[in-house]
C-alpha cells in the first residue's frame, strides 16, 4: 500500500482506519463524500435514494478497505465502488419498476429547447435515460455528464474500451430517436 501517486496523508488515513480508528474513517468520508454524491446524483431521481446509495457505497468502502492495494489514488478506488453500486441500483430498479409511460409521454411532449435551463434539460434527460438499458445509461452518463474519457469509463466499469464505445453508440442512437420523436411531436 505505497502507491507512487497516493499522498502519504491518504495512506496514513487508510492505515488508521484499518487499525480500527473510526474517526479516521469519518475523515475519509468527509474527504470523498462530495465526489460520491456527485456521481450518484446523476443516476438517481430522489434524495432518499441518493442518501441510501451513498451510505451503501461508504459501507462497501469500509468493508473492503483492507483490499485497497494503493496502486491508484483512493479517490479512483472509491469512485469505482460508487459506479458499480450505481450500476447495481439501475439494474435492480429496472427489474422492480419501469418508468410509467404517461410520465415519459409528458416529458416528451415538452421537448428540449436551446434556451432551456440546466434543470429542465436534466429533467428531460433523466426521463429519456430511463428508457435505456442500465449499461447504456451507465456509459452515457459517465461519458457525457461526468465527462470521462472512454479509457476512464473502461477502468471504472471494468468493461473493455470497445464495449464502452459500442454501448455509447447504442445509447446515443436510442437517445437521438427519443429526441427526434419529441421534436417531431412539437412540429406537428
Amino acid at each position, binding site marked *: 500500500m505505497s502507491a507512487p501517486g497516493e499522498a502519504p496523508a491518504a495512506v496514513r488515513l487508510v492505515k488508521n482506519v484499518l487499525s480500527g480508528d473510526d474517526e479516521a474513517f469519518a475523515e475519509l*468520508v468527509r474527504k470523498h*463524500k462530495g465526489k460520491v454524491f456527485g456521481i450518484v446524483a446523476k443516476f438517481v431521481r430522489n434524495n432518499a435514494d441518493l442518501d441510501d446509495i451513498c*451510505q451503501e457505497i461508504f459501507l462497501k468502502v469500509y468493508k473492503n478497505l483492507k483490499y485497497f492495494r494503493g496502486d491508484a489514488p483512493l479517490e479512483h478506488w472509491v469512485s469505482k465502488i460508487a459506479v458499480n453500486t450505481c450500476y447495481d441500483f439501475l439494474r435492480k430498479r429496472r427489474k422492480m419498476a419501469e418508468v410509467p409511460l404517461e410520465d415519459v409521454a409528458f416529458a416528451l411532449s415538452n421537448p428540449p429547447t436551446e434556451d432551456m435551463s440546466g434543470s429542465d434539460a436534466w429533467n428531460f*434527460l433523466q426521463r429519456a435515460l430511463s428508457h435505456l438499458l442500465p449499461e447504456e445509461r451507465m456509459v452515457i452518463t459517465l461519458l457525457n455528464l461526468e465527462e470521462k474519457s472512454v479509457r476512464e469509463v473502461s477502468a471504472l466499469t471494468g468493461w473493455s474500451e470497445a464495449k464502452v464505445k459500442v454501448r455509447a453508440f447504442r445509447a446515443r442512437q436510442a437517445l*437521438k430517436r427519443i429526441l427526434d420523436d419529441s421534436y417531431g411531436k412539437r412540429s406537428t
Partner: protein
Amino acid sequence: MENDLHDTNLDGLFAAARQAEFYDPNREFGFEARVMAKIIAEREGEHPFLFWAWRLITVFSLLVVSLGIWVYLSEPGQLGDIRAIAHLGNEEPIVIAFWSGE
C-alpha cells in the same frame, strides 16, 4: 458513427444538463455521522457476542484476578497438604514398623 457522436441536439442537451445542480449540497450535512451510525449498528449486529465480550473484557479480567486472590487467601492449609504429600514416600517404613511392633 462519427455523425452520431456529434449530434448537435444531443450534445446541446448534455451541455445544458451539465449546468444543472444535480443535488442539494445540504444533503451532505451530517452524512459522515449517518454513515458511522450505520457502520456501528452493522458491526454490533454482525458480532453481538464479540461486541459484548470486548466491552466486558475488563469485568472478566477483574473477576479472574479477584478469584485468584480469594482462592490464595482462603486456603491457608495448602502448604501443610504439600508437606504431607512430600512425606508420602515414608508410608512403607511406617506400615512395617506398625505391624512389626517396633
